[in-house]
């Protein structure tokens, strides 16, 4: 199991690196797919069977497909994804790296503290899938629909809001028309800018 963990760890990091370094978004998507796949295996190893499956279905099946569709949609245009200079301060990348390393150490340090492995509220581990066994689908479902019913319902609400939001944002509605007043301001600003440019 230790070997499996380290192998998965290497694969997870590698695929994640690929996601953020790939030139083309579609390659990133492929990397992310791989990443999710390895992650699902890790979840299995942590006895989270249901979530491992969800990970594959929801993330790999739904969300990544969405990414692919958007990429396809946008790639039909002619403009490149990135134009112009990178305006981020030069210090950004090294700063991120330093912070990342720092935090990594911190996190590692925190969790090296002895943690009491308690089993107060949980259930005993047992055969996969069976009720009353930690991480089983039945166990998860029981927790979800009894103790955590309200949060579960709220997720439904969140998703609905998201759907409405997406429709409002990307839906094909009447474009935003500036009021006359605003138009005047814009016009005045432009005129001033032209005058200023002329003076310079």
């Amino acid at each position, binding site marked *: 199991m230790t070997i499996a963990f380290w192998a998965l760890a290497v694969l997870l990091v590698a695929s994640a690196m690929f996601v953020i370094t790939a030139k083309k978004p579609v390659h990133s998507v492929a990397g992310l797919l791989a990443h999710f796949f390895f992650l699902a295996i890790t979840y299995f190893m942590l006895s989270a069977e249901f979530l491992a499956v969800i990970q594959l279905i929801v993330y790999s099946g739904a969300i990544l497909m969405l990414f692919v569709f958007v990429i396809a949609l946008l790639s039909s245009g002619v403009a490149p994804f990135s134009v112009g200079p990178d*305006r*981020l*301060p030069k210090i*950004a990348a090294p*700063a*991120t790296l330093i*912070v990342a390393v*720092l*935090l990594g150490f*911190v*996190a590692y*340090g*925190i969790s090296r*503290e002895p943690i009491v492995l308690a089993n107060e509220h949980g259930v005993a581990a047992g055969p996969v899938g069976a009720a009353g066994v930690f991480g089983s689908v039945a166990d998860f479902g029981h927790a979800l629909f009894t103790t955590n019913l309200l949060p579960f319902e709220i997720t439904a609400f969140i998703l609905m809001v998201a759907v409405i939001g997406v429709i409002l944002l990307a839906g094909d509605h009447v474009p935003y028309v500036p009021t006359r007043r605003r138009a005047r301001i814009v016009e005045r600003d432009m005129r001033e800018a032209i005058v200023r440019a002329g003076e310079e």
Partner: protein
Amino acid sequence: MGIDGAYPLLFVIWLVPLAGAIVNWAFGPQLKRSATIIGSAAIGIPFVATLMAWNAATQSSGAAVGAHQNLFSWMPGFDFGLLLDPLSLIWALIITGVGFLIHAYSVGYMWSDSAIARFFAYMNFFVFAMLTLVLSDNFVGLLVGWGLVGLASYFLIGFWFFKPVAVAAARKAFVINVVGDVAIMFAIFMMFAKIGSITFANVFAHVGALDGWLFWTCLFLFIGAAAKSAQIPLHTWLPDAMEGPTPVSALIHAATMVTAGVYLVARCWPLWNASHSAQLLVGTIGGLTALAGALLGIAQWDIKRILAYSTMSQIGYMIMGVGVGAYQAGVAHFFTHAFFKACLFLGAGIVIHELADEQDIRRMGGMRSRAPVAFFAMFAAVLAISGFPGFAGFFSKDQVVFGALEHGHPWLYAVGIVTAGITAYYMFRLFFVTFFGTYRGDVDPEHEPARGESHAPAWIMALPVAILGIFSVIAGYAMIGSNPPWSRLFAHTFPSENLPPVAIGEGWTTAILFVVMAAGIAIAYARYATPVALANAPARLRLESERMPAVLVRLFYFDDVIDWLFVKPSLALGRFFGSWFDPDFIDGAVRGLVTLSTELAAVVRYFQNGLLRSYALIVVFGAACFAIYYALQGTVR
């Protein structure tokens, strides 16, 4: 009938001039020249009432003669009332009597001025204010009158408001008088704080309560008196005030208002009696003013300015009199001075009127034939002011000068005598240069005098002058004798004192004064009225004006020093505050705060660059800080 206690005519005396002023002011445009009748009547009626009051007062037997009338409570602790006692009666008589004559004279003098109704409104208002001043039974009421006469004087000096010189003179007079007002105010604070009352009766009854503050109270009261009465060094407004119409100069700046300072000191005699240093101060200032006014009178060429300096000088006498403790002498000099000085001004007014507003005596001469009434009246008045025996000024001036010696001030006595000589010299100089010789100006004698389509009859100006001229001769006799009505009145004004006899008796003083005066007249005659001098008058006068010492021409530099000490620093300070300190320093500090916050905002703004990724970076950084904080806390624990 005595006038002890309430006296209904008091309101007639006090308020009728105000009614006249209001009517003339409100309906001036409709009244036009009928305003002269209302205006004169508004002074004539109080004059008659005052005479009746005087008649009643002389018949009252008690020592304390006086009518008192409570009016209303102005503020808690500030109760207003009217008081008619011998002192205020003397002043009221002069104000209404001489005032009436001058009003009548003004009818002729101002006849062709389009704003004649306004003039009479102001004049009536002045009389009202002056009566408020002298009839008030408390210091605040006196101060109200004090301020209002200053206002009336301001209006009348600046009556011809289109003349910039007149406007400037009016402002100067007002501001210097406000200096006096606030000084009196401060004296009132002291009296209110120490005695708790502002009525004359209470204050004088508790002079002792002022203890250490007594001198300061007297000093501040006297600053007020000096500003109003043109005493050194607050006299500079008086000559400039001659920019007003001549009747104004006669009424306000000679007969009545400028003597308010004398009234104040005389009214507060219990205070001065209690403070010897205050007496010395007032007497010295009075003497110095008398001398300085006389010296400056020598150097002037403007007929009204000569009279202005002589007024200043004569008021110096009065102040010296009341200052040294010879109150009765000072008041007597006020009484006689009102007549002869008003006469001089009005006579000068006739001359000025005759010569189409010419005021320079170098361009006069030979006026004896052109203005005979003025000549005779002014001759009487000049003799009176010089103190010629038998004329009005003789009696009072003699009293004042001798009073100085009697109360132990030999130096002031000397000053008084010297000044009397100089007075005789410059008054006769004026008289000779104006009336003798030949005419040196260029106004056609056949020409109808002054700007005038229509004229008031000539007698309307001549008659008041003649009456005043007569009084310049006879007024002095009111003070002699043991029991005529007049002297009874004077006798009740102040308590008599038994003073030790002095080295030089009164007879000797009279003699010395006569000699000095005769010398003054003789010099004036030698310089201006000998046949030779008259023949070469233009050249001699020109030579004299060229050789006049600068110190006299520049009026002892009083104006320059005041300008240099007060006016210029104030303006400089104002400019410094207004154009640098306020906008740049104080407001600069405020704007500095604004700049500071703008700068701080600019720093923050650097992070607010709109780049999504930089915001993400900042979030990460913040998260890192938190994480590190908790991690360190963890390790410490």
